[in-house]
């Protein structure tokens, strides 16, 4: 027994390590399918809303004139729209990012509430000219393209 064990120790070690790593990989893959945080545009969220309470991200433009502060002084409500003019109401309790303004892009992290209002836990706005959330950057490009089409 001992001799056999000695002879195959390397093999046994490799098998154990492989099993552990493949196990980790499978577990990670399974968890990723469940825990990944999907990105929605307003039109997508209106058409096929995520489950209530599932954490997702919503990206679009802050609608002009929609930003209001609730009486508690720290909660704001606004609407996020996109070029298809679908609209999702959002509520956020916290300090607004430095460059958060109406008519500008935003990515809200949070979940859809039962009343259809998106509860944001975190807002990502354009940080400065060098740091733009990736989705926003592409959105800007789409909009520019749309503007160009309209002008011609």
């Amino acid at each position: 027994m001992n001799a056999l064990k000695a002879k195959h120790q390397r093999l046994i070690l490799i098998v154990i390590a492989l099993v552990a790593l493949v196990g980790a990989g499978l577990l990670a893959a399974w968890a990723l399918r469940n825990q990944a945080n999907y990105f929605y545009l307003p039109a997508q969220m209106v058409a096929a809303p995520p489950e209530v309470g599932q954490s997702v991200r919503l990206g679009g433009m802050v609608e002009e004139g929609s930003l209001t502060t609730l009486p508690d002084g720290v909660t704001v409500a606004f609407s996020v729209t996109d070029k298809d003019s679908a609209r999702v109401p959002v509520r956020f309790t916290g300090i607004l990012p430095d460059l958060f303004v109406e008519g500008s892009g935003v990515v809200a992290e949070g979940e859809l509430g039962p009343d259809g209002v998106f509860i944001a836990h975190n807002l990502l706005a354009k940080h400065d000219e060098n740091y733009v959330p990736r989705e926003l950057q592409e959105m800007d490009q789409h909009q520019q393209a749309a503007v160009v089409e309209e002008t011609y």
Partner: protein
Amino acid sequence: MTAELGLAALWLAAALAALQLIAGFLSVRNPTGELAMLVRPAAIVQGGLCAFAFVVLLYLFAVTDLSVKLVASNSHSMKPMIFKLAGAWGNHEGSMLLWITVMAMAGGLIALVERRLPEKTMMATLGAQAFVGLGFYAFLLLSSNPFERLPQPAPEGMGLNPLLQDIGLAFHPPTLYFGYVGLSVAFSFAVGALLTRQVTPDFARAMRPWVLGAWVFLTIGITAGSYWAYYELGWGGWWFWDPVENASLMPWLAATALLHSASVLAARDALRAWTIMLGVIAFSMSMVGTFLVRSGILTSVHAFAVDPERGSFILILLTLYIGGALALFAVRAGSVAEGERFSLTSREGALVFNNVMLCAILGVVLMGTLYPLLTEAFDVRVSVGPPYFNPVGAIFTFPMLAVMAVGPLLRWRRDTMARVRTPLIAVAAVIVVVLVLVLVLGGAGILPLLGLAFAAGLAIASFLPLRGRNLRRVPLAVWGMVIAHFGVAVALYGMASETAFTKERLAAVEVGGSTEVGPWTVKLAGVEPVAGPNWTAIEGHLQASYDGGKPIELGPQARTFWAPIQETTESVLATRWNGQLYAVIGNQAEDGRWQLRLWWKPWVTLIWYGGMLVALGGALALVGRVREDLKRRHVRARIAERRREAKA
């Protein structure tokens, strides 16, 4: 003229790297030939040339030479001197130059001092080092020349991102680079040993100081980066599972595994192929990290400029090095003789278990980081955050912590659990007591609960290896291990405590009004405009008192920088021995009230003290090992001398 001197030095260094590569690999068969004589000097002079080029860049930034493109686009004549200098590496080109400088100097240092290994292995190692270096020279010189001139000198510089104008920046990237580069040296040693089939304890001893050094720097870099994000970003969090953070964590995990397996190889001549493999993986993770951060594939504060050309360049280098090394490993691993054997219950067994756990955590983090890139290929946008990383990582972390408590108590080769039963029962008792205490005293999530309990158990277990020993005769390396393991427990306690007990308060407060968070009462005494060298700000005057005690003055700011124009939130911290109060001021509401966001974070500082302890442990071990090596070398020299005398 100065910039051109720097550029010339870089080209010369690249030429020397090419020479070192060719001469090194040709001399593997004939390590005493004439070509071999060139290899070590080439490495040393290369280090000097790169250091010169880097000093030139520092000089250009110090005098703000606006005819140089890099200076014009990243600096400003009005910046404080320290940020002018830090600006030299606070951008893509400069940081790549720093990388290659550190790498060339490391290569020079090995060439200068490393005499333990067979000369043919050294030739292969230095050849591999030049091979890695050459790729980076090509990258720097062909696609990101730091010394490029503007056709017309700019009237004024464009400034540095204000988020990066912080003393943390002066040290954060260089420390991480020292880490990455140390791992590149370990990689070269691994390739050299594999090429010449000399996977011996001597190889592990030669590689170990580099791994230890890299690991210490990575630890400091990660700890400092975490603290920087904590107070600078104003979100009150210390780890976000941001791809960039993961990019620094993954090499650290691999280096931790490598460090321990190299110790087994050095002490017991076991785990030969495994150590080589980890050497390859550790450097791969540095490269993957660089690729993720620099390619612009992920957006983050760290992605200086989005440039697909650079991304593909790093990807090519990555494939070349990693693919090459893995292919070499596949061909040669079979011919690396099996090392010494050991039973499962032994220190080697525990180390192997934790190596596998570390690799599993590494895999989990890697998959979580790459998954969004993968789904993007199918046009599905996802992001992966704490709900994935925390539980999945914890599944492997807690068994690892448990074995970490036991492992150092076991003997090499073969041991029984019965021998270490008493200390184990004591540690288990501590864990159970803390579990029960926290459960009774108040709710905490399952992970922070386990974290608190394991932290307490590990803190005690980490000192058990000293039990029954004469403390003055304990080698420095053992002290290093004890302190590093204790540091892990301390950091873990801080993380668990912060997660479990943080109190948050968000309120709109009028001037003169006050609010409460945890044991603190915070009064907003006033709000005033203030100005700094290149910014103006709104500053809130807070009077915070702990448990009705004497109030402390705090001044959180909302700053507006004017070069470039940008707003940032400057948080303030009130640190007590048992935690930190974290305060941020927001906008003024229409009714005149100010938004205040306050957190009370019990024991949060332990996270970074723990990280520093881990780094200190690593540094002690490094000093201890290097001293042992020097002693051993001295003894060998004396024996050789005596033999010569005896012959004469």
